[in-house]
């Protein structure tokens, strides 16, 4: 059963109250959007379902979806803690401060916050190296494009998104140096209509492969309608464009969530900061579409192997920024700190990065 926001607090409480026995591990999940059938929250919920399948009656999971970031979140997180959830996953950046605040009031409850940077004795943070997946999808897009123009529909110019665009571009140019990537910002994480128009705009200007960092599936659908190609994000979006969908960079939370639950059950849970990628199984590509050639698949597999072996890093030198200035020297690799703060475009991207002012 799903409950809408207005009902959820009361409903979640009654749900939990009856059915659980004392020895079960109760785990709470807070989601920022509806689960749907693709997207950020959907991937977290896949992991939650995997936990239920693995541990069966030993755990009891509760989730609350469509929780707005801010005051609403604090109320929901506190409610979950009060209801005896010993482990609580808060899965959106905006839950950072509410999570830390509630964690102070419940020192025995363990919190896992996705994408944040504030930790405490009972608050861990975790994130995936999405840029590794972006790099791989860049390879696929770079091989698929005929016009050498790739369109990228993005939400907001924050480091996380810019990093993805850069990694994608570097990947595309690693197999096709003539590729140019054109970015259109929608200033919204979720607006199917606007994402669709952004996609149409890019295609009308010559792009024949599209990538996206927004939450709806409208971009893939637009590419399908126009007979072009698209790369999905978060989840496999091939349903919306059977022919257009080349692949998607997806997040796999299951292995991490299982390790956290194991640690919790063995009494070995510790506050930590996890940033895992392909190697840790937190990032993966979805199945390739019919348009992807064997040659491309082999190139991607090679890159996967090299990234896993530590031989290849998407942000390894020599790297130039948009203006042609060297940002990473040959033989060097960008540090995690630099990655997290990334605020410029690399070579091969058209247009200016919107400034913060």
């Amino acid at each position: 059963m799903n409950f809408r926001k207005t009902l959820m607090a009361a409903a979640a409480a009654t749900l939990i109250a009856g059915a659980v026995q004392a020895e079960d591990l109760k785990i709470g999940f807070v989601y920022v959007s509806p689960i749907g059938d693709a997207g950020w929250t959907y991937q977290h919920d896949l992991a939650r379902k995997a936990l239920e399948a693995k541990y069966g009656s030993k755990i009891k999971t509760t989730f609350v979806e469509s929780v707005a970031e801010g005051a609403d979140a604090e109320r929901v997180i506190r409610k979950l803690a009060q209801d005896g959830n010993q482990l609580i996953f808060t899965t959106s950046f905006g839950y950072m401060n509410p999570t830390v605040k509630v964690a102070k009031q419940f020192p025995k409850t363990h919190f896992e916050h996705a994408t944040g940077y504030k930790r405490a004795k009972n608050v861990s943070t975790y994130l995936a190296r999405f840029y590794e997946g972006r790099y791989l999808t860049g390879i696929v897009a770079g091989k698929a494009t005929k016009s050498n123009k790739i369109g990228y529909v993005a939400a907001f110019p924050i480091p996380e998104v810019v990093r993805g665009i850069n990694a994608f571009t570097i990947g595309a140019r690693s197999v096709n140096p003539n590729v140019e990537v054109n970015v259109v910002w929608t200033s919204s994480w979720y607006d199917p209509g606007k994402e669709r128009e952004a996609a149409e705009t890019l295609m009308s200007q010559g792009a024949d492969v599209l990538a996206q960092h927004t939450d709806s599936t409208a971009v893939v659908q637009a590419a399908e309608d126009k007979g072009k190609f698209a790369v999905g994000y978060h989840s496999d979006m091939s349903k919306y464009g059977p022919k257009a969908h080349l692949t998607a960079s997806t997040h796999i939370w299951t292995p991490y969530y299982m390790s956290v639950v194991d640690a919790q059950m063995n009494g070995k849970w510790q506050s930590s900061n996890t940033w895992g990628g392909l190697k840790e199984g937190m990032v993966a590509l979805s199945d390739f579409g019919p348009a992807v050639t064997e040659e491309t698949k082999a190139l991607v597999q090679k890159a996967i192997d090299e990234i896993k072996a530590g031989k290849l890093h998407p942000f390894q030198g020599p790297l130039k920024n948009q203006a042609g200035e060297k940002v990473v020297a040959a033989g060097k690799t960008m540090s995690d700190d630099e990655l997290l703060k990334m605020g410029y475009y690399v070579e091969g991207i058209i247009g200016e990065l919107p400034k913060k002012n």
Partner: protein
Amino acid sequence: MPELETIIAIALATVRAGTPLVFAALGELITEKSGVLNLGVEGMMLIGAVAGFAGVVVTGSIAVGLIAAMLAGLLISLIFGVLTLTLQSNQVATGLALTIFGIGLSAFVGLSYIGTPIKGLQPIDIPGLTDIPVIGPLIFGHDLLVYASLLVFAAVAWFLYKTRGGLILRAVGESHEAAHALGYSVIGIRYLAVMFGGAMSGLGGAYLSLAYTPQWAENMTAGRGWIALALVVFATWRPARVVLGAWLFGGITIMGLHLQASGFEISSHLIATLPYLATILVLVLISRDATKIRLNAPASLGKPFHPSD
């Protein structure tokens, strides 16, 4: 200089982006002209979007989907009608509640339709006519609902200013006491106006889920209902201005995207605010002449009426 094809693409996209607003805003215009302020447009659009989508999934017919969308919008607006007209509840609060209710109900009903692919409404293609350079795609290159939105506009404009019914509707919106004294059923007329507004909002929502982005996704209107509401004021309750305003709003959004894609050095944040800035600017320009606004704004807008008063 942008190429001709780009300009045509912008023009087509502008009309597409404006069409859901045209439907919803014309519906709300009629509702407001009768003196009722229904802030539930966003909710009614979502209900229409999900009902239309469900209709197409179940029957496979776009026509059935469109009828379902209008009926659903109409039914949901009836709740508003009963509450505000018969039970005399506050129109602003009830309208807001209707939006929240619509968002929740559409999400609930739509759960099983998420991710269901459908074949959406395609642009018409008349051999010979659509192929004419420039004019062909501009006149004959839209989907049927775009033409329907123009028909609705013509019908609304004709009805309001050229028919006896329109005169009565406006009279009810200007002074319900006077209309009542003349023997017109104020409540009955307002019910009809509210229902028309609901049906048109439903149709606007269905344009999103059946033609614009043929899929159902929770909250897919993304605030367009509120824009439609603003458009009615922006247009000073004049049908032609509603249509132009909707296209202006859509056009500026699309222009922003094209400017970005052309590598024009302009902040995406600024571009995102442009449609709203333009709206405010036009509002300022229009409201310089306060008499003209008062001439068009229904004098009894938002005021409750009971025949016994």
